[in-house]
């Protein structure tokens, strides 16, 4: 695996410019739009946060954007931003942290002033930081209590990367956030964010003078700080299957499961595995094998998807959010809430079919069709030019040029037979983590422990072919492994 730092991977074009363009600056013309887009990325993230300060990068970036500076109160900054409808977003992940900006070309000068003030003179006022912590803590607690699906996916990552820097969530935990202060955030800002670990991509109608000004501001951004990102250790693989059952007393259960992948987007092996995950179920689409089996044929739930790398949904779209490139990746499957009684059957179906794919791979037609689908589908990833810039930076992280062309090349680079072998090798049925967040976990534990039969519960009886296949699935033994049971309150108290 390789991680290549971004440097000059984009075409740098600044018309009429005779100054030296720093290596961290990229301009991509996009004159047909009145919108200016900026993706400002730092090589820092939750992986280097101390255990007891998880979430500090995110909190720091939020405070810089939303709070008072030494000269200007928060209310004035917000008014300036609101009146101009300037869109600002932060994305924090394990390895990188990104500020995304979108603004109308009429407001570039005003935004540059706001950027300078906030980046160079943030106040980190304690009362504002306290309030932010309270809001974030409440958001995290709500997720544990009410958002069983998001919560289950967080637990999956925590358990899969147990003991590794990736185990801590970029958003942090209620117990880590509440210990942080404005002073901590200030120190973290100065130590982890600097012109020396930064890359900026700009696109849209920005004049050469405005670009000069932006470069000038950022050149003076913590120039004496040299943040380093230490080499991350290989994660330890689980020794067996770990079932994590978390009881929230609900009628329905959210399920997700995953295993480590020994490659990432920079490796050839990634692309057949990506094809396989897409075949199993592209996020919130009807195309996937799992969706057809669990929702379309059996009416079990709302959706069932698979992911060939760490996935975060981009707002309300169905596409991935940029800003999450990771050195160490994992494969995951997400079964959306289904009746508690159907969890054992759904798990058996997933294991049964994964075993089948591990033995036989994907048929050639499905392989080619899925590959062709992805080649077109990737064109839809970027919701706007800021997303496009940020995806390009993700690809640069992996040493790949030219998003999305390099993804298409990657997909085309492996023939079917080689791809088959790579898919089979990438399925690890013996060292995975399965997380269930729902009700009646006691019964599920018993079924898992004793491998008891559990017939599916149907709203309406499906066709004979489905029922016949059900028999084979019901007889499939659930793989034995370690079982841990918790209540959601355990997580609230622990966290």
């Amino acid at each position, binding site marked *: 695996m390789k991680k290549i730092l971004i440097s000059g991977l984009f075409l740098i074009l600044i018309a009429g410019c005779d100054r030296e363009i720093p290596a961290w600056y990229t301009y991509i013309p996009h004159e*047909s*739009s*009145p*919108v200016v887009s900026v993706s400002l990325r730092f090589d820092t993230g939750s992986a280097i946060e101390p255990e007891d300060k998880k979430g500090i990068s995110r909190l720091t970036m939020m405070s810089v954007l939303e709070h008072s500076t030494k000269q200007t109160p*928060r*209310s004035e900054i*917000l*008014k300036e931003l*609101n*009146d*101009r*409808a300037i*869109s600002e977003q932060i994305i924090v992940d394990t390895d990188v942290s990104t500020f995304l900006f*979108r603004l*109308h070309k*009429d407001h570039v000068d005003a935004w540059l002033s706001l950027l300078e003030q906030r980046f160079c003179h943030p106040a980190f006022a304690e009362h504002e930081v306290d*309030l932010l912590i*309270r809001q974030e803590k*409440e958001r995290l*607690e709500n997720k544990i*209590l*009410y958002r069983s*699906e998001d919560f289950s996916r967080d637990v999956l990552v925590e358990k899969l990367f147990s003991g590794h820097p990736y185990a801590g969530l970029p958003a942090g935990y209620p117990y880590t956030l509440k210990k942080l202060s404005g002073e901590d955030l200030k120190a973290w800002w100065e130590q982890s964010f600097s012109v020396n670990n930064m890359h900026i991509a700009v696109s849209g109608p920005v004049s050469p003078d405005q670009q000069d000004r932006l470069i000038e501001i950022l050149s003076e951004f913590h120039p004496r700080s040299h943040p380093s990102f230490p080499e991350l250790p290989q994660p330890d693989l689980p020794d067996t299957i770990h079932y994590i059952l978390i009881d929230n007393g*609900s*009628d329905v259960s959210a399920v997700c499961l995953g295993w480590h992948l020994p490659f990432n987007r920079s490796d050839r092996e990634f692309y057949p595995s990506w094809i396989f995950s897409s075949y199993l179920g592209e996020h*919130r*689409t*009807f*195309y996937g094998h799992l969706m057809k089996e669990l*929702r*379309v*044929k*059996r*009416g*079990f*739930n*709302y*959706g069932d998807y698979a992911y060939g790398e760490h996935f975060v949904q981009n707002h309300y779209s*169905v*596409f991935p959010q940029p800003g999450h490139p990771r050195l160490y990746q994992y494969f995951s499957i997400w079964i*959306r*809430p*289904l009746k508690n009684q159907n969890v054992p059957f759904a798990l058996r179906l997933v294991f049964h079919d994964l075993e089948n794919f591990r033995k036989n791979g994907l048929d050639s037609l499905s392989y080619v*069709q899925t590959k*062709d*689908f*992805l*080649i*077109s*589908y*990737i*064109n*839809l990833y970027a*919701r*706007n030019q800021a997303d496009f810039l940020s995806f390009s930076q993700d690809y640069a992280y992996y040493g790949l040029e030219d998003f999305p062309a390099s993804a298409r090349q990657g997909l085309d680079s492996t023939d079917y037979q080689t791809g088959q072998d790579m898919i089979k090798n990438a399925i690890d049925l013996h060292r995975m983590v399965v997380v269930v967040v729902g009700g009646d976990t006691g019964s599920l534990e018993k079924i898992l422990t004793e491998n008891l039969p559990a017939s599916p519960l*149907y*709203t*309406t009886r*499906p*066709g004979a072919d489905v029922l016949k296949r059900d028999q084979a699935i019901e007889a499939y033994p659930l793989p034995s492994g370690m079982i841990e049971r918790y209540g959601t309150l355990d997580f609230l108290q622990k966290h």
Partner: protein
Amino acid sequence: MLMKKRRKLSIAILFALCFTVLPLNATFFPYLMYEKELPNHMRIVVVPIRDARTVSFATLVQTGSRNETDHGYTGYAHLLEHMMFRGSENYSTEDRVNLLYRYGGDSNAFTSMDYTCYTVSCDPAGWQEVLALEADRLMRLSLKKEDFKAETGAVIGEFGISEKYPSNRMDNALRACMFQGHTYEHSVIGYREDVMNMPDGYEYIRDFYKKEYRPDKTIMFIAGKIDRPGDVLSKIEDLFSGWTYEPAPLPTIRPSLKPVSCQDTLYDASIPAPRVKIAWKIPGYAQDRLGHIAARILAEHYFSDNSPLMIKLRDEKKWISSGTYSVPLTIDPYWISLDLVLTEEGVGAAIGDYVLGILQDSRYTLKAGELESLKKRQFYKTHMQLSSPSSILRVLADYAHIKGDPQEINHYFLALERLEILDIRQCKENYLTRRNQSELWMLAR
């Protein structure tokens, strides 16, 4: 050859002259819009976007939970949206999936109170086939019984996901009180009992589809990489020419602006923080465009994160940790709602009275200069949303759903431009009053 090219060019110009709404400086919407109404009253809108790499479709059907007038059958507009993915006469579910798959398509949908919108984005090479696919399900949906039964399971699953969220529980409780007698009293997904009974609603959904999905309630929008908009308009006209318009009476939905003041408290020991929701009934956009827009401006003035009221509640009184507001763009009277997450100090406080006091205090009244800033803010905010073919269509559809007019976005911003302080004052005096203010609390105990 040259002749042929010239002929094509003149046809394109003709289309442009016939259907284009121009120009930029006279309207808000910054793209060229080709628009046509078919003899069956279905409307088509084509928006070519320079530099686009994809093509997007948005089919708007003016049917949402608002149209669910029959007792015991709430949630059927949303259920029908699910069924629209379950195959049509000429395309099975499998055919649909395979066709969209071939063009790297994203096909999705959402149902709101007022309308349902079906979206597809895909490779431009697939536009004709995708159009045929969309036309078939609009006119000839299969609605097979076994598919219906299976799909009700998916909806029950979706219901299970959302019913626990504190914000949804509060919305549902307040809505039921404030809009009693109007279909806005129930949520889009429907009442629990009705959702659980959906597996027995097969006959009903067939009637609902026949009654609600008709050409005069449908607008198809297409945007993105479109070289010849005239070809797209002709193709759509061909495809939908067989969809006959049969005038049939639709149930009457009577809007009511009668002031209402609901007060209640829900208890849940597990919530991480107490909350209060304060809401005011405001005019629907269809009946009072200016009044509705004035209410939106007032909400932004008083309740945005940075307003004096929110700063007082959060930073001075320390009653809340955060607050958000919403003013959905609705046909009939709905609400401005203010959702506050409380601190411990805020639990016993008379927050509703305090908010009302600020609303009535002349020191905080919206000034002319502030109104102009807020107008600009809305202008830029909406402009920034027009970032891709699919997002452009989402914005267009949201405005068009009210009266079925694709130009509504331009009407809205024209009305906004003309809005005066007097309109704002009148709106505040009429609607942001004690007798029109409702409150719902959610406390641990």
